[in-house]
């Protein structure tokens, strides 16, 4: 039965390779960071919780000390890229399409045919496992088609990975924070407080408070990912899902999108809102946000309606 463990070994292999290449490139900080992450992927399932906790502390220590840096692996020049883009045309998009097509078509095929009875994939893990398989197929197809130098796929991957840096594990760390919040009973405490503040039984008002909290915390922190575990633990799960019996998939997915509306409104999300104003040499550094307000506010309201209708009216 294929499940997450297959993906962990696969990803562990990728991270280990990137660690070796970083070491060869004389970047010990990057090598240590990706190496420890590879160890977590390879051995995490067999280590004690405490040992895994130590790995987390080491990763955060390396990142916090500023030892994970950008890298500049050899790649093609812009001129070479122009030439090959003109030669290859729109076929360049095709290998990238292999991944979602494999995963989505594979999931549908697996779940709606007798294949599911074979128990080939672990329950609920099939899409992500098929994503991993899709990546391998896309990689093999690209290599067979483009015939790059042997180290190119790994080095091009490292170029992109190092441009993301330690932020690559931020979503995983935030999910871990959500789990610690759950363990510490944060949801119960806020659920109690909010339950007292929001009139009993008003589902719509609770949805509004949830979506407002997502957008508001996102604006303060500049990051909807960080707002999510907070608002899910506070209102999304204890009140909307548990007390009012809403559909968790809608509350989670659309709640995150309500947060994205907040991202459109805040100078804290500098990469999206402030950097482009500078790149475009706009006089007002908030000019991009000004153009986004008129979209973000009605869109936020749409998200409230989608949660209310999708998670409650259609669900019950």
């Amino acid at each position, binding site marked *: 039965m294929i499940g997450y463990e297959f993906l962990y070994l696969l990803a562990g292999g990728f991270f280990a390779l990137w660690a070796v290449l970083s070491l060869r490139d004389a970047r010990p900080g990057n090598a240590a960071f990706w190496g420890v992450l590879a160890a977590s992927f390879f051995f995490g399932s067999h280590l004690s919780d405490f040992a895994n906790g130590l790995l987390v502390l080491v990763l955060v220590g390396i990142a916090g000390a500023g030892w994970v840096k950008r890298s500049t692996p050899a790649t093609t020049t812009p001129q070479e890229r122009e030439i090959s883009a003109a030669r290859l045309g729109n076929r360049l998009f095709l290998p990238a399409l292999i991944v979602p097509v494999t995963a989505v078509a594979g999931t549908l095929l697996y779940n709606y045919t007798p294949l599911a009875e074979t128990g080939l994939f672990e329950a609920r893990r099939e899409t992500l496992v098929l994503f991993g398989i899709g990546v391998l197929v896309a990689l093999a197809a690209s290599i067979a088609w483009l015939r790059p130098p042997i180290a*190119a796929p790994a080095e091009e991957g490292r170029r992109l990975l190092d441009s993301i840096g330690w932020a690559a594990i931020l979503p995983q760390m935030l999910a871990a924070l959500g789990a*610690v919040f759950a363990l510490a009973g944060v949801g119960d*405490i806020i659920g109690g407080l909010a339950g007292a503040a929001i009139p009993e039984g008003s589902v719509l008002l609770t949805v509004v408070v949830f979506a407002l909290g997502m957008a508001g915390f996102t604006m303060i922190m500049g990051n909807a990912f960080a707002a999510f575990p907070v608002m899910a633990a506070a209102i999304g799960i204890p009140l909307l899902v548990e007390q009012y019996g809403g559909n968790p998939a809608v509350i989670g*997915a659309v709640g995150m999108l309500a947060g994205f509306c907040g991202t459109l409104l805040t100078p804290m999300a500098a990469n999206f809102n402030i950097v482009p104003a500078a790149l475009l040499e706009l006089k007002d550094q908030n000019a991009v946000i000004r153009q986004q307000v008129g979209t973000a506010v009605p869109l936020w309201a749409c998200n409230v309606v989608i949660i209310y209708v999708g998670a409650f009216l259609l669900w019950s």
Partner: protein
Amino acid sequence: MSYWPLMGIALVVIGFALRFNPLLVVVGAAVATGLLAGLDGVAVVEALGKAFNDNRYISVTWIILPVIGLLERYGLQQRARAVIAGMRGATMGKLLIAYLGFRQITAALGMKDIGGHPQAVRPLVAPMAEAAAEQSHGELAEAERDQVKAMAAATDNVGLFFGEDIFFAIASILLIQGVFEAAGYPLTPLQLSVWAIPSAICAFVIHAWRIRSLDRRIGSARA
């Protein structure tokens, strides 16, 4: 009931707002929350280790990078720019609406690095929008020029944010899955990502309407 564990939430908010390294903020908040909830130091490290380990699948998404990097090596970005450049000749409104749709669809298919401010907006989308607006309305005043360029950047953001979550293997979707799974609600990535579609449609309609009204407003300022 003690309210002390809520300090963890305050730490996340303050730490992010003050721009400390987000990984340090998150782990600091997790440790503080655990300790304030009455766990001892070892138990906190164990809880953190278990939670991080259980959520490894979120970081599995990075295995797609060699595919994207390899295609970039052979001109993926340049090809995307050629597609965008092919939208030339339309009005500013039509151009930006076409770019909005292109950005949403490619992001929904997992190609969220096609487009972006340094790669596409500055060299391509903003100058093209400016040229199209001048074509239909004549010389732009400086404030109008800035509005058009800012709208081009805004269009890239809206297209990305309200397209990317339709792709299931993206960190935000798996983060949602992880948080709900830890709370005892197992979900699948596709179950979540289909619910990004209604918002994506709303985003397209609302933002397309706003692009059109900017185009019209600039036109009517001259009438």
